[in-house]
């Protein structure tokens, strides 16, 4: 028995080395027509963000399947290789595995901005493209990366859009001048919440509103009584709130419990946009705003027949995998859009499938519309400036788009909220 362990040890080391030498070669370039075109997907599949990470991966898989059914990319079938990145260090190693070991040409990611920045470090030095559909931190496109292409809006834009709407339209509806309007900002403490809240606060101050409170909490919080009581002391008219789904529900429950619901609740994603939000809160959710990327748009928003069919097919395929969900989560919609748009609109425009051509195609292609509800128009920094945040509102368990005008499909209700205090 004593001898077995050292032998086992040696075997393990050997196995590791053999897998290393045997499995897959170095990063591939080009390749013949019959060789699969390798792409990678790096998401947190375990750890705190596993829920959305898995949904994003499913969405990307569906995109790849659809593309392959239609003939692939440049005549080559797309092969998706997935990786689990619970934190940025793992993201770095996994990006290395996908690029150096498996030879992927494009990486779809990342949900968490920290992961995105870590992966960007790897893709930058190897020329692989990172198509980002989840991380909103401004730093991702403000840091000079050449191979990062972000389809969704920057966090600061999302926050600013929400705050702007509050300071203009909502102030109007309440009949309170922006300089008299009291707003409180709550956010979960990760880089997601912080990015969006920063943007909201900056805009609120710019418009002259009174930011009477700003608090953040750890996403693992189990009791928000103290938070709600503290915020309520400051008597805000409007609450700007960035949460994930679990804490969003807890927050609303606690606000109701202490009769501290403000006149207007402006959610700034992602929890307040989650399909489960209204389903769990029930009828009281009517009137809650949720600023986020366009989500669950009715099909007639898409003028193009083909795009309508694509969106419809995607939603069907996704909900088949998640039968308990009422609608596709926004993270998954974004993940699908990023992958699908890149494979069907950008890559065909690339002369060849090498990094320079892909980058050229990504920057020069301009699209009026993608499956996310806005177009594709990258600046030199890789940020999609056609990306917008929509102002949505929950009405009768459905997300209704209020702004921008061209996507509007309903009117604002419940300002102020019927369940608001006093």
């Amino acid at each position, binding site marked *: 028995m004593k001898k077995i362990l050292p032998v086992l040890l040696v075997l393990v080391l050997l196995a*590791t080395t053999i897998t290393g030498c045997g499995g897959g070669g170095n990063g591939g370039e080009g390749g013949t027509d019959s060789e699969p075109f390798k792409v990678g997907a790096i998401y947190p599949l*375990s750890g705190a963000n596993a829920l959305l990470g898995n949904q994003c991966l499913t969405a990307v898989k569906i995109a790849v399947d659809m593309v392959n059914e239609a003939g692939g990319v440049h005549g080559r079938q797309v092969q998706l290789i997935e990786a689990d990145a619970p934190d940025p260090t793992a993201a770095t190693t996994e990006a290395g595995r996908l690029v150096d*070991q498996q030879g992927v040409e494009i990486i779809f990611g990342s949900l968490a901005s920290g992961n995105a920045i870590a992966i960007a470090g790897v893709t930058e030095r190897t020329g692989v493209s990172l198509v980002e559909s989840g991380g909103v931190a401004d730093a991702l496109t403000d840091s000079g990366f050449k191979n990062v292409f972000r389809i969704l809006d920057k966090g600061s834009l999302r926050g600013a859009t929400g705050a702007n709407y509050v300071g203009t339209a909502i102030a109007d509806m309440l009949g309170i001048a922006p300089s008299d309007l009291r707003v409180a900002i709550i956010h979960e403490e990760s880089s997601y919440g912080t990015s969006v809240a920063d943007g909201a606060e900056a805009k609120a101050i710019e418009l002259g509103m009174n930011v009477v409170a700003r608090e953040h909490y750890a996403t693992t919080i189990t009791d928000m009584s103290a938070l709600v009581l503290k915020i309520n002391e400051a008597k805000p008219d409007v609450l700007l709130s960035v949460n994930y789904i679990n804490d969003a529900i807890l927050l609303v429950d606690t606000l109701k419990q202490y009769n501290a619901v403000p006149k207007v609740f402006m959610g700034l994603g992602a929890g307040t946009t989650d399909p489960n939000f209204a389903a769990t809160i029930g009828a009281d959710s009517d009137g809650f705003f949720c600023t986020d990327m366009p989500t669950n748009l009715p099909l007639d928003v898409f003028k193009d027949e083909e795009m309508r069919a694509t969106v419809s097919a995607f939603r069907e395929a996704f909900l088949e995998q998640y039968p308990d969900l009422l609608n596709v989560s926004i993270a998954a919609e974004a993940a699908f859009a990023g992958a699908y748009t890149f494979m069907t609109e950008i890559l065909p425009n690339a002369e060849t499938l090498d990094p320079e051509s892909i980058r050229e195609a990504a920057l020069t292609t301009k699209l009026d519309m993608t499956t996310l509800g806005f177009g594709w128009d990258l600046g030199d920094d890789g940020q999609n400036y056609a990306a917008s945040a929509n102002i949505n509102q929950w009405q009768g368990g459905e997300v209704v788009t209020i702004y921008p005008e061209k996507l509007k499909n309903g009117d604002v209700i419940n300002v102020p909220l019927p369940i608001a205090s006093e």
Partner: protein
Amino acid sequence: MINKLLSKNNSVLWIIALASIIVPFFLPNRYFQDIAVMTFLWAGLACSWNLYSGYCNRLSIGHAAYLGIGAYSSTLLYVNFGISPWIGMIAGGAISAVAALIIGGTTLRLRGTFFVLSTIAFAEILKVMTITSKDITKGALGVFIPYEPGFSNMIWASKIPYAFLTWIYMIIVLLICVKMERSKLGYSLIAVGENQEAAENLGVNSSRTMLIAFVMSAVLTSFGGTIYAQYIMFIEPTSVMSLMNSINFILLAITGGMGTAFGPMVGSFILTPISNLLRGYLSSVSGLHTFVLGLILIAILLFRPDGILPQLKLFFNGLIKKSKATKGV
């Protein structure tokens, strides 16, 4: 029995340690080189942890705090003031030393489990402070290090220089551990670990001994933190100062063998590649790789709580005896 093994046969382990630098050159691609870099880095980190916690058997489950101090100190100095991380590393070490003096001064005299819990508490407080001091540390957004390769920046394009750096780090920590083992400080520390009262009766100033070792451990860990930051090029509070990282120190040390200089190195040589490869190849089922890792650890703890190193030593001893025997015939 462990002590008998301690004195001899370090030579074989030294050979393994020194020869290991060759491995990165033979690895087929950057992915494996990356694993090699992390293996050396964690070997150094785990040995740093072991310097205090292993020898006197008092677990610090908060060492990620020093990793964080090292990482944030050098990174903030570099990103804000352009100060080279080599100098930033020393600065980080100094800050860690001060932190360790304060923390150690207050908690080292606590009994076993109390001390362990206090280390968790301090790490957690430091993490919260880092997140809330947004103006200095950028809070949850994290700090990104721009890619400007150069020796003075401690940034390179290829993994090989990083492999050298982390390997040298590991060797230096090993040297310090081995030297300390044979010094008065080391004997005192081990004695305190075995039986504090008895050691004190023999004239050992246990609080001074533990404090010195604790500070050394913190400083060395902090150096590793700087290297970590310069390698990953992005730091954020929740992933650097995480409980998972703190636990990793212990896992590596205990797999190889706590309280021996080379134990944590062996632990890292085994576990770091395994955990990375598990995550890489078992990604299709969420959580499977960590599950398997946990099972492996439970197995080691139930069946080989002294770690793998004593096994290795017996194995090598056996080999050496055999060759001597055949020679004799």
